[in-house]
């Protein structure tokens, strides 16, 4: 549906986007995920028409988008700051796009009423944005974006301005809405949890390039590059050489068990990644595992995070266990994992 082909954009010396190509399907909930300054917002602004790429093409259902001015694209953008018109009421804000289409007054009124109903703000139609809470403003912005029935809805960090509790509610609501209206959503976020919980597919951006495009579960379980392994979720990374077998050869720890995602030539640089929840904490007397000492235990309610100092490893090894932890800081332990729970990828050049 939306096809992004070889888009590049430079700002002076900085390359914001370097030959980015993506294909997004009809009705898909797609996320552009990456740290700040990775170019994801620039891509969004190019699609919306507020930024012009130096090279590349963007087409929507085969139609060229880049030759159209921003006000002639069948695309809605929900701004990070919401950009609600402060001098208009909620109803007027939502009606703005329909009024520009010169629709009959009666139809505008009806559609504004419907969409306010959908986002649960019917009672606030006559208020000004300044009289609303953050969550309500966000819903007005959303209503204003979807009321035009765009073919594509772009959302720039839609939940970042909300506090944690409201954010969780809005996440569910966004998903429900997307199902209901059937519009293709492209959301930009730096929050990997948000991307994983919302999106059908995620493109991970790093310094202007796409590192991996995958479904959330694949992205989490089978990261294809050290950047993705490190950025998406917490991870423990061990570097070494590919051994040709199920494991890497580490200078400090010898063989570490893991599963290569692709054939790696023995002797080349490799990285082993193992998720905190896949690591098992064993007694210091256990036969297998890396010996270390518990540095810190943090209790989060459902889970506890334990960081273990393993001599020879630059960062503490992070272990997640269900419920409260049974160990205390200072305890001598061993950390170990099964080969199928750790993934091995080629190290960055």
């Amino acid at each position, binding site marked *: 549906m939306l096809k992004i082909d070889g888009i590049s954009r430079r700002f002076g010396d900085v390359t914001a986007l370097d030959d980015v190509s993506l294909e997004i399907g009809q009705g898909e909930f797609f996320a552009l995920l990456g740290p700040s300054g990775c170019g994801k917002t620039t891509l969004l602004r190019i699609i919306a*028409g507020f930024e012009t790429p130096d090279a590349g093409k963007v087409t929507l259902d085969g139609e060229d988008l880049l030759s159209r001015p921003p006000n*002639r694209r069948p695309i809605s953008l929900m701004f990070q700051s919401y950009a609600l*018109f402060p*001098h208009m009421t909620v109803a007027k804000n939502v009606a703005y796009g329909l009024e*520009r289409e010169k629709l009959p007054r009666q139809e505008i009124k009806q559609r504004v009423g419907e969409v306010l109903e959908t986002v649960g703000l019917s009672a606030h139609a006559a208020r000004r944005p300044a009289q609303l809470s953050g969550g309500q403003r966000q819903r007005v912005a959303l209503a204003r974006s979807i009321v035009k029935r765009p073919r594509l809805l772009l959302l720039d960090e839609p939940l970042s301005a909300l506090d944690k509790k409201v954010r969780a509610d809005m996440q569910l609501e966004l998903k429900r809405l997307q199902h209901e209206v059937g519009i293709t959503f492209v959301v930009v976020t730096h929050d990997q949890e948000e991307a994983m919980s919302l999106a059908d597919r995620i493109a991970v951006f790093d310094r202007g390039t796409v590192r991996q495009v995958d479904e959330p579960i694949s992205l989490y379980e089978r990261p294809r590059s050290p950047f993705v392994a490190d950025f998406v979720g917490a991870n423990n990374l061990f570097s070494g050489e590919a051994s040709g077998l199920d494991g890497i050869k580490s200078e400090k720890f010898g063989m570490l068990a893991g599963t290569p995602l692709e054939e790696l030539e023995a002797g080349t640089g490799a990285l082993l990644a193992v998720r905190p929840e896949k690591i098992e904490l064993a007694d210091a007397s256990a036969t297998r595992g890396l010996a270390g000492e518990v540095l810190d235990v943090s209790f989060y309610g459902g889970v506890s995070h334990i960081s273990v100092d393993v001599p020879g490893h630059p960062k503490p090894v992070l272990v997640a266990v269900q419920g409260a932890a049974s160990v205390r800081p200072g305890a001598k332990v061993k950390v170990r994992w099964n080969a199928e729970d750790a993934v091995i990828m080629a190290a960055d050049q």
Partner: protein
Amino acid sequence: MKSEVKTQPVSRPRGRWLGAFVFLSPGLAYLVVLMLVPLALVFSYTVFQRGRFGGVVYEFTTENFERLFDPLYLSVLLDSLKIAAITTLVALLIGYPTAYLIAQLPKKWKTLALVAIVLPFWTNFIIRVYAWTILLSGPGLVNSALAKVGLGPYELLYNQGTIVAGLLYSYLPLMVLPLYAAIEKLDPQLREASANLGASGFTTFRKVTLPLTVPGVLTGSLFVFVPSFGNFVIPEMLGGNKSIMVGNLIRNQFLSARDWPFGATLSLALIAVLVVLLIVQAWAARRA
């Protein structure tokens, strides 16, 4: 002991009032001595009679207010209103695009442009206005330039248009600066949101930019209108004797005709018009 401790918080508000009074008193003294007292004096003159050789004779009369409605003086007031209104309108029409443009400039150029706007203020006001008489006079620069292409000479000085030009030249910066401040603080994303929702550039201006900068428009208009309306230097230098504004009239009553009570009455009328305008402006700004 306990009761002593309790009395302390009670005495604190009194201390705060005292502190406020100490800090406010210089400003209050200034306002009372240099504004309220003279204003009260001037207003009190309006109900007294003129002295034969100037000054005031303290005998009650309503004659001054009756004279105010003499068509001769009324037309001067109306002319002044007209000149000030035209000046304000033209200043707005020139000032808005200027301010808008400056607000879009890169930061470095913004500062430079603003300095350029304020720069004329660094030269003496009289000299700047006087320069216009040299430019526009019969054998002046403008006419001799026109003569080179076979036009003119035109009578450019000493009419209402010249006064408007002079006022405009002098007070345009006072229009540009508040407008710039209003436009500059507009979130540029509002314009993007408007475009994203299908509005053309003109519609965005009409529906978003202009309504949100109305306070700046009102402030700028007031800043230009007030000094234009009561001005007497510019009409005197550029308007000749033909067209007189209320400022000239007041000056003449005090200095030439030596009719202080009527001069005071005219001043009262001028202030009354401005107060009404201020109230209208405040009301409109609150609604915007």
